[in-house]
């Protein structure tokens, strides 16, 4: 089925230049033209809307320096650790809460209501616990991504087909086997969805913490660009960051087959 879709996508050149694609191109060109006009008009503060050439130059400058990749690596490592610890804890807690109705009723409301609270306010506490280095950023990212993963896994656990669970029991699977052979494979989509949400909030948590207090990472570079009023560089960094974040989100969704779910 997927192969057929891919084929149809390739064999229809008309779809490449569909009206929607043309409109997209027109919107992009229109926005770029208005941007360039505004940058030269003098109507707005100087440098708030830098010319496209300046942004392009800053983008090239940014991507051709090793410093950026070092800071990108620091942020990626912080987000990766946060996702590993927070996501791992979220999966375990989600499985426990999803499997046990009593525990779910006792503790899930706390997770449900604490989940959407602004996590950045915990940053002063994280600094006290873990210092001003990358550890406090990892801790904030961990805290941020724990809640969506735990809630998504708990909900996914309750949606598992009871037949699968009975099959596991009839094979006399122990708890570990039930988790690895039945629960986790059956909950692949809710877990990936939770990880996708967790990745987004962990990224935001880590980056915001970096903008508040750090000496390395992409958040630090952004706030540094702000403090020296280097607007083209800030725009360039935001563009790269958005592309990376949206790409990572789409990639996790695609790897988990969420794309296929939506299509069916």
């Amino acid at each position, binding site marked *: 089925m997927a192969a057929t879709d891919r084929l149809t996508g390739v064999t229809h050149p008309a779809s490449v230049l*569909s*009206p*929607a*694609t043309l*409109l*997209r191109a027109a*919107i992009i060109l229109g926005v770029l033209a208005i941007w360039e006009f505004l940058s030269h008009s003098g109507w707005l*503060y100087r440098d*708030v809307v830098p010319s496209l050439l300046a942004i392009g130059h800053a983008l090239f400058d940014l991507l051709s320096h090793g410093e950026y990749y070092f800071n990108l690596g620091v942020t990626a490592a912080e987000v990766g650790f946060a996702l590993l610890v927070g996501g791992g804890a979220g999966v375990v807690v989600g499985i426990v809460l999803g499997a046990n109705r*009593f*525990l*779910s*009723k*006792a*503790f899930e*409301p*706390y997770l449900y*209501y*604490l989940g*959407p*609270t*602004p996590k*950045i*306010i*915990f*940053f*002063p*506490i994280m*600094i*006290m*616990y873990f210092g001003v280095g990358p550890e406090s950023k990892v801790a904030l990212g961990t805290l941020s991504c724990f809640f969506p993963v735990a809630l998504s896994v708990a909900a996914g656990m309750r949606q598992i087909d009871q037949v699968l669970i009975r099959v596991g029991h009839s094979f006399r699977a122990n708890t570990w086997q039930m988790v690895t052979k039945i629960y986790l494979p059956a909950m692949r989509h809710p877990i990936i969805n939770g990880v*996708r949400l967790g990745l*987004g909030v962990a*990224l*935001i948590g880590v*980056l*915001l913490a970096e*903008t*508040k207090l750090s000496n390395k990472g992409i*958040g630090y570079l*952004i*706030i540094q*660009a*702000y403090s020296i*009023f280097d*607007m083209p560089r*800030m*725009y360039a960094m*935001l563009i790269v*960051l*958005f592309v990376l*974040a*949206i790409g990572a*989100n*789409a990639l996790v969704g695609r790897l988990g087959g969420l794309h296929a779910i939506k299509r069916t």
Partner: protein
Amino acid sequence: MSAAVARRSGSYMPQAVGIGSLVAFFLGMELLVQTGLVNRFIVPPPSEIIGSFGRVIVEEHVFSRFLQTLTECLTAGVMLTVFGVAGGVLMNRFKLLQQACETWVAAMASAPIVLMYPLFMVIFGRSAWTIIMMGFVSALPPVILKTIEGISGTRKVLINVGRSFNLTPSQQFWKILFPAALPTIFVGIRLGLIFALINVVGVEFLINYGGLGQLINDLAERYDLAGTYAAICFVILVSVLFFIVLEKVERWLRPID
């Protein structure tokens, strides 16, 4: 009868265990701090945090700060409702626009928009408008997406009723499509308001300006640990109450469910 009473009393058990665990956690923490096993200059004893609530509320003008945060959040909410719903309606009305832009809006929902706050500070200055605009822009995608979902999910039979009454497109929208989509639109507005609150408090904290977010930053910078914890508890309490109120309003709008 007795079975019903037993069931009812049994249904309170999980909540009792939840609250009991929370109380046990705080008591355990108090014990650990008082015995010196946990450094009280990193984790203040819970009794001290509870004691500092009154001080923080009176001396730090929590109520006026709360009103400030709420005003910023509601201003962003009004803008969200107006622009988000209008954007969703517009995209639903012009299908080509929807085909062209819906993916972008969905992509924006997964982008860390709040990272644009230094840019907004340059544009709007270190003012309430930076906070409001940040809350507004970050929370816009879910409102647009849910509005599209709500309108395009209107039951066919309702649309046919409108057609059989020979309604004009404007009447069809105001009498059929919009009322039918309202519950879903409100889901989007609720999500948007939650995002707005998160971002408003977050940006207040980051730029050290405004209401409750700034309070936490202020207290942390003064190294008033008990006060910082109390202020964080207060923000959590306010956020949770905000979510509960929004949920109640949403349920009220969805009487069928």
